């Protein structure tokens, strides 16, 4: 299934690329991208459903509720790098509109 690369999705991919190996929290991503939860979470859900993102519950300290964390899978990292570089090379609008694919592989 092909992922629709909206400008908001590109913002999320870009935010994940900062310290790509590190786990990230939903609220931190919301602040980094400026996206509201109603926009951010559907993007995270789509990325996770396509196995571009792995999710994990943080093993919190006793008495502290765990938080949900997100990180790119190897496929996700490749996809994000190619998408963001395609967007940066002037094709942001075209990528966002789905006119060009950032990667020959469909995710």
């Amino acid at each position, binding site marked *: 299934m092909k992922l629709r690369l909206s400008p908001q999705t590109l913002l999320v991919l870009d935010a994940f690329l900062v310290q790509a190996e590190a786990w990230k*929290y*939903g*609220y931190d991503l*919301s602040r980094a991208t400026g996206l*509201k*939860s*109603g*926009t*951010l*979470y*559907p993007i*995270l*859900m789509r990325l996770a459903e396509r196995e571009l993102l792995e*999710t994990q519950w943080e093993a919190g300290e006793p008495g502290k*509720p*765990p*938080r*949900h964390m997100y990180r790119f899978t190897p496929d996700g990292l490749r996809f994000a790098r190619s998408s963001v570089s395609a967007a940066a090379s002037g094709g942001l609008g075209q990528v966002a509109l789905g006119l060009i694919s950032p990667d020959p592989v469909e995710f």
Partner: protein
Amino acid sequence: MGTPRNLAARLLRAVLRLAPEESRDWALATLRELDFIEGDWAALFWALGSAAAILRHAASGWRALLNRKSNKEAGMNNTGKKALGVGLGMLSALSLVGCALAGLRIISILFPGLEHSPWAYWLAVLAIPEAIFVAATVMLWRKRGPMAAGILAMALVVAMHVAVHLTLHW
């Protein structure tokens, strides 16, 4: 805890209770993040957006479930249609047998001499209806298979009835 944050927590807990299994992790994730949001109103807006996102996600799951159910129902309807076709075929054949018996009765009234003629009886009750059944079955087999099967079944029932009748009385 201010009223807007309280409301936000209540909303997300309600969403968590309502969410189907596949959306529950996401609902819980948004609820947990609530503790890290600064500002009561920001928390409420976070909850509103999250609730909408979770409900949309859940709705897509429900749609998929409904589609699967619709496909099953379509299959059941197909079976129902086949059963109806067989029933209609049998009913048509039975009507023909009834018409044959009624015709025989009319003939016996109009031509009293034929009443005791066995060949007229067998022709009206067995030969003509059976010939019509076989012709109808052949004609309908490709386009209306279930109906043809119903007619054929009734033809067999009539033939067996005649066979039993002959065995017992002759």
